């Protein structure tokens, strides 16, 4: 009996993946005059204002990509549906066809490239640490014997582990359940540093009671290319997305978008994140590519 159930489950899975093989997103968009954009609810690059409204640097860039695709396909009307995704479900939702294009804060790495494809990199995240301005911590070597916070379910946990091992450092790790929680640990003194993506650190500091009490310090612990995610083996759709991004880089509109979301006051609290574009991001825009994170580490 159990064997039969297992066999039935395997057949169902195989059928599911066979259907997902029919990979022509442009034809699907043209046929249905609708497209689903995957967005995040609370990430630095893509977040919600509530009431089904999604904003952020990558969300707006994704909307512009879809505008270009609408023009390319000659559609009079394109219905854009928003589908909030999480770190846990984003890859399954893209592979099973629920989401056509995900523009959130997904790191392009080799493991994920086995399941999905990535558009050209549009933001390069640098993992660093936030500390209290008066803590005297300036580098990862200052963390010896201290307590370091990071957030469960992020690649930073792994980065921290690698640095601890490589530098023979001995520090205590604590894990917040989300970024706000990790930052709270630094605020309340439970942790001495919060290791995380630079944009997330900057956003948390900008929202703190007194932003001047905190600063981002230390060497770059890890470099992660962030890109829109799409289904694997769909070259026509990938080309359409990449072309649109290259167009936005070339005519300067993406730079304006960056300024809008990182240097100007942004909703919902109208505070400035104040994170100038990094050299790594500038470099990625100058030479558009979809190289995974592992290629950045080699440099």
């Amino acid at each position, binding site marked *: 009996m159990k064997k039969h159930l297992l066999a039935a489950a395997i057949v169902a899975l195989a059928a599911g993946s066979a259907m997902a093989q029919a990979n022509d997103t442009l034809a699907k968009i043209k046929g249905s005059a609708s497209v689903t954009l995957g967005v995040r609810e609370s990430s630095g690059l893509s977040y919600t204002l509530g009431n089904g409204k999604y904003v952020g640097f990558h969300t707006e860039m994704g909307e512009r990509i879809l505008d270009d695709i609408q023009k390319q396909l000659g559609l009079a009307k394109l219905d854009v549906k928003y589908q909030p995704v999480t770190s846990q479900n984003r890859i399954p939702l893209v592979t099973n066809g629920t989401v056509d294009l995900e523009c959130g804060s997904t790191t392009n790495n080799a493991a994920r490239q086995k399941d999905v494809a990535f558009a050209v990199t549009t933001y390069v995240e640098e993992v660093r640490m936030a500390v209290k301005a008066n803590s005297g911590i300036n580098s990862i070597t200052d963390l010896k014997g201290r307590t370091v916070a990071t957030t469960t379910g992020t690649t930073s946990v792994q980065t921290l582990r*690698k640095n601890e091992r490589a530098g023979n450092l001995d520090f205590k790790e604590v894990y917040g359940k989300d970024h706000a929680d990790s930052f709270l640990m630094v605020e309340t003194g439970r942790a001495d540093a919060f290791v995380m993506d630079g944009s997330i650190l900057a956003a948390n500091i900008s929202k703190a009671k007194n932003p001047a009490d905190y600063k981002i310090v230390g060497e770059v612990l890890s470099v992660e290319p962030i890109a829109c995610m799409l289904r694997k083996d769909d070259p026509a759709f990938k080309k359409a997305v990449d072309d649109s991004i290259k167009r936005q880089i070339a005519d300067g509109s993406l730079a304006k978008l960056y300024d809008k979301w990182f240097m100007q006051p942004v909703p919902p609290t109208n505070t400035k994140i104040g994170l100038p574009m990094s050299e790594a991001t500038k470099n990625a825009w100058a030479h558009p590519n979809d190289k995974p994170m592992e290629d950045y580490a080699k440099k």
Partner: protein
Amino acid sequence: MSWDWQVFCTDTLDQTTVAGCFGKGGDITYLDWLLSAWGWTVSVSLLSLALALVLGGLIGTLRTLQGRPWVVRLGNAWVELFRNIPLLVQLFLWYHVLPSFFPSLQRVPGFVLVIFALGLFTSARIAEQVRSGLESLPRGQRYAGMAVGFTTFQTYRYVLLPMGLRIIIPPLTSETMNIFKNSSVAFAVSVAELTMFAMQAQEETSRGVEIYLAVTALYVVSAFAINRVMAFIEKRSRVPGFIAASSAGGH
């Protein structure tokens, strides 16, 4: 969708497959990590259970004392306080709020705080069951104890509790299984237990389905093991002819 169970044999640092699945010389594979996470889940659960049984039994008993209205009220307040605040909120009160009043609490590891939070939360529920078990006994039992000259302590020790506790073994079984499942809140205060392992490992390996299936299986195994232990206790402690329902093979 294809399976890749090799993911558990992967080293957590360099993501290479390790022969034999267990890391050597300080290296850690995801299988090592999974087992250590299971250890944390079991430790949190069993220690909280011990605390909950002791406190719950005590408070539940106090709530049935005759002629001590203030003790009863104190017991009632305890139960209502810990039963009416969501578990996760209680945990954050222990972890973030109390240390801001008593700075020395900041030195206490999250592991200890989660045992207190989960133990006290569950103690309120167990206290309620102990009370209902004691109150379900015929009034004559208490009088019988008094009639043979027992003190209040002796009446409880030799007459009321042995019968009352037997009655509540089935709901206590559910409670012990709940404690295993509730222990997943510990991830929120940085205890490296199964839920935290699941969230972290699926992010690192991109093999969410395999990781969650393995974690689910371990939760089921743990909860079912405690269920069997309780069923054994229920069977061995049964007084023939006392509770009719329990002769039918338990719950």
